[in-house]
């Protein structure tokens, strides 16, 4: 079973425990009744979907939730998003999305803040080109919601 173990180890870079955990039990997974911004992200290739809801107060994101379907990566990424963006200004939230996209592309972790450290769990996708979109889908939806448009596509 060395082969298998090896396979598992390699895959742990991508499927870190935090990812599997958020993938299995996504946080803030509900349709918000009253919200200030919302957008849907679709990845037509694999059918992944994330619908994101944001409540805003005093120029900050006060609450975030999502519904959707898809792979562990896309759902975990959305789940993490809903935990990490409350308290941020729209610009700061966007900047966090930009950091995530860069990690997903380069694989470089960013441990400079606790939030980015948690997000760095997603950096493992950079080895899997076809999965990068899964990790970034929710963050595209975030941009779209903040821009006031209704749809985002990770394509």
């Amino acid at each position: 079973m060395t082969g298998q173990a090896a396979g598992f180890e390699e895959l742990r870079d991508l499927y870190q425990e935090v990812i599997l955990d958020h993938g299995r039990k996504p946080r803030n997974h509900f349709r918000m009744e009253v919200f200030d911004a919302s957008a849907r992200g679709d990845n037509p290739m694999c059918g992944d979907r994330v619908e994101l809801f944001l409540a805003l107060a005093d120029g900050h994101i006060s609450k975030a939730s999502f519904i959707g379907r898809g792979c562990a990566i896309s759902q975990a990424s959305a789940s993490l998003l809903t935990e990490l963006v409350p308290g941020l200004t729209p610009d700061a939230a966007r900047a966090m999305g930009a950091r995530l996209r860069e990690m997903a592309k380069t694989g470089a972790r960013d441990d400079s803040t606790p939030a980015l450290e948690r997000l760095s769990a997603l950096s493992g996708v950079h080895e899997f080109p076809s999965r990068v979109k899964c990790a970034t889908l929710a963050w595209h939806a975030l941009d779209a919601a903040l821009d006031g448009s209704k749809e985002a596509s990770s394509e």
Partner: protein
Amino acid sequence: MDALPARLDVARIREDFPILSTQVRGKKLVFLDSGASAQKPRAVIEAMTRCMETAYANVHRGAYHLSEVATANFEAAREAAQRFLGAATPEEIVFTRNSTEAFNLVAHSFGRALLKRGQVVLVSEMEHHANLVPWQMLRDAGLGIGLRFIRVTDAGELDLDDYARHLAQGDVGLVSVTHMSNVLGTVTPAARIARMAHEAGARVMFDGSQAAVHRAVDVRAIDADFYAFTGHKLYGPTGIGVLYGKRELLDAMPPFQGGGDMIETVTLEHSTWAAPPARFEPGTPAIIEAAGLLAAIEYVNTIGMEAIEAHERALVEHASATLAQVPGLTLLGSAQDRGGVFAFSLDVAHPHDLSTFLDRRGICVRAGRHCAEPLHARFGLEGGTSRASFGLYTTAEEIDALAEALVAARKFFA
């Protein structure tokens, strides 16, 4: 390999495919995505190389030897396709880019010119987008042509009662259905479908993209009006597909695209059309690809479609039994007559995650909706499925490797 018939020497066949002995990240390649596109035997690669190194020139245009040789080779590919499908004459074989273009060609040319306002095109719920979207576009072209859908049963078979009900409405001009589903593996009763269509006064087209790879096809025995397949799934190159059309239909159809080589005379103001198949092949055709397709057809002919089919039946039996043992796995479709395509869901893992997991073991399966979104919706699987599909080089061991890996994936993701 006990489940396989002795007459197909798979180990030897595998040696014909250079890519099958390569490794993926240090793992033996287990290629179970032949339904999306098959790998190429050396004979195909060499035929394309030979074409470019010794017999290349534009075809149909030159009066010099090299062009004559190139033209003869190109037309030899057409004759091979004719015999492969059992068509009456080579003029009934139109080279397209792929299957997709064959449907677009028929939708534009037959659909716009020969279907009448008030008539409908009938497709099924299990069609590949290639055999759905062109008809949606025809419906939306403002010509008064409708589009309806034959139901698929829970077992994943064509609902023939529903089909009969549609035909009974008397407005069906064309039936266009798959000869083998690329998701369910279902092989449809083509001859019966054609007979029913003809009795109702409708023409019938088959999507043979999958079927022609796995079964011997005889368009005259089926009595198909149109039949399409695509080179790259038949171990041939990309960039070439085949549309069979009955001579009298092709003769009556206007061109789809315009350009060189499809005309008889051209003035600035008007052009007259060449006879089929030239009428439907504007511009420089897929010369190098035709050489590859010819080699591919010769390759499967040498092995024999019966032997290929028998091998596949054995693989299907083996896979049905083996996958049934994987805990948490649900197979999509359970048709009586099926080919080597298995779509499935695993309870604890999303198809995309599963693909990534399997890939790390060198196992290639597809994840998604396999260009058949409506079918996935029909079965409540909007999120997609995983799909393993076989080629003539697939072994029982590879299926075993998949099953083992699925069990491991369950441990990993659960």
